[in-house]
């Protein structure tokens, strides 16, 4: 091992920590908007989570997903809550409940890809609903 290989192990050179702030994570939860009915949203979430090998438990618009982490060494859990913001407009909030943050982000990305059919993407014509700019799962 040469000196530089050791140096690259430094915590001070691991800028990915900038993206892994606990406080941030609580404030900036991952979320998306859907125009489907809550029933469809929840059943889609359950189906996708099941296909990703996760255990699903839903009660009152709150779904808990559980499974093993990517490296199978730890637990992974996420909690999803569906809120009705306006008639036929739902905010789906996804939050990490247990496990590694990196795993969580990977999960979320994959999760959203499979849920494209229920995720609402803003366009010119629907901007009039007052959602001037939202970020959907993919940009």
């Amino acid at each position: 091992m040469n000196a530089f290989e050791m140096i690259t192990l430094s915590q001070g050179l691991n800028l990915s920590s900038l993206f892994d702030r606990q406080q941030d994570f609580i404030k900036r939860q991952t979320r998306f908007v859907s125009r489907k009915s809550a029933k469809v949203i929840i059943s889609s979430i359950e189906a996708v989570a099941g296909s990703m090998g996760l255990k699903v438990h839903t009660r009152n618009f709150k779904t808990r997903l559980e499974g093993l982490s990517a490296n199978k060494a730890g637990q992974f859990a996420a909690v999803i809550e569906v809120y009705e913001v306006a008639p036929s407009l739902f905010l789906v909030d996804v939050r990490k409940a247990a496990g590694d943050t990196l795993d969580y982000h990977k999960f979320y990305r994959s999760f959203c890809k499979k849920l494209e059919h229920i995720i609402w993407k803003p366009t010119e014509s629907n901007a009039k609903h007052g959602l001037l700019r939202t970020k959907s799962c993919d940009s």
Partner: protein
Amino acid sequence: MGCLPSSQRKQCSGYQDPVALASQTAFSVSEVEALFELYKSISGSVIDDGLINKEEFQLALFKNRKKENLFANRIFDLFDVKHKGFIDFGDFVRALSIFHPKVSQEDKINFSFKLYDLDGTGFIERHEVKQMLIALLGESEMKLADETIEIILDKTFLQADVNGDGKIDKIEWQNFVSRNPSLLKIMTLPYLRDITTTFPSFVFNTAVEEIVTKEVVCENCDN
């Protein structure tokens, strides 16, 4: 002074036009806006002035604002190109751009060279590598005998310092990194590709937060 709510975002003292920043960097406009969410959080964590000072940077990296670290200091200095003593949003975006997966190896190699050239002489000298190695060991609370450190340095310079003048110049560094590509691992942040997913921002931020704090019961659903 500080960061005002998103509707008055332009008055946040660190804020710069995302379109301009996107054109200068590897980021799209929406990615720059997502970075602004991260920036706001870091820059407001100790003093809410819309700028990132050293303590806030340390807090972001180590979750400990008092933690001093040689490498974090180097990164901070390279972000703060004009040596103002703080990092503004433009600095933040332009520096992070170099860590984007799609940016050239050349840019990353250049940045890493400057990083390790502690005193900015244009060469990475043996005493600098020694200092960095000792700092790294200190992080893990490891102490190696001076002899052992010298052996590691000898081995390193044998590989990197091709002309044997006791220091590593830019060309030698480029060649050395090409032979040891894992050394550039720290120069790429895959997170940057997903930044808009990690930090989604809504214009109606405040309004939504008010709604979601009360659990809204869905009328159309069966229980």
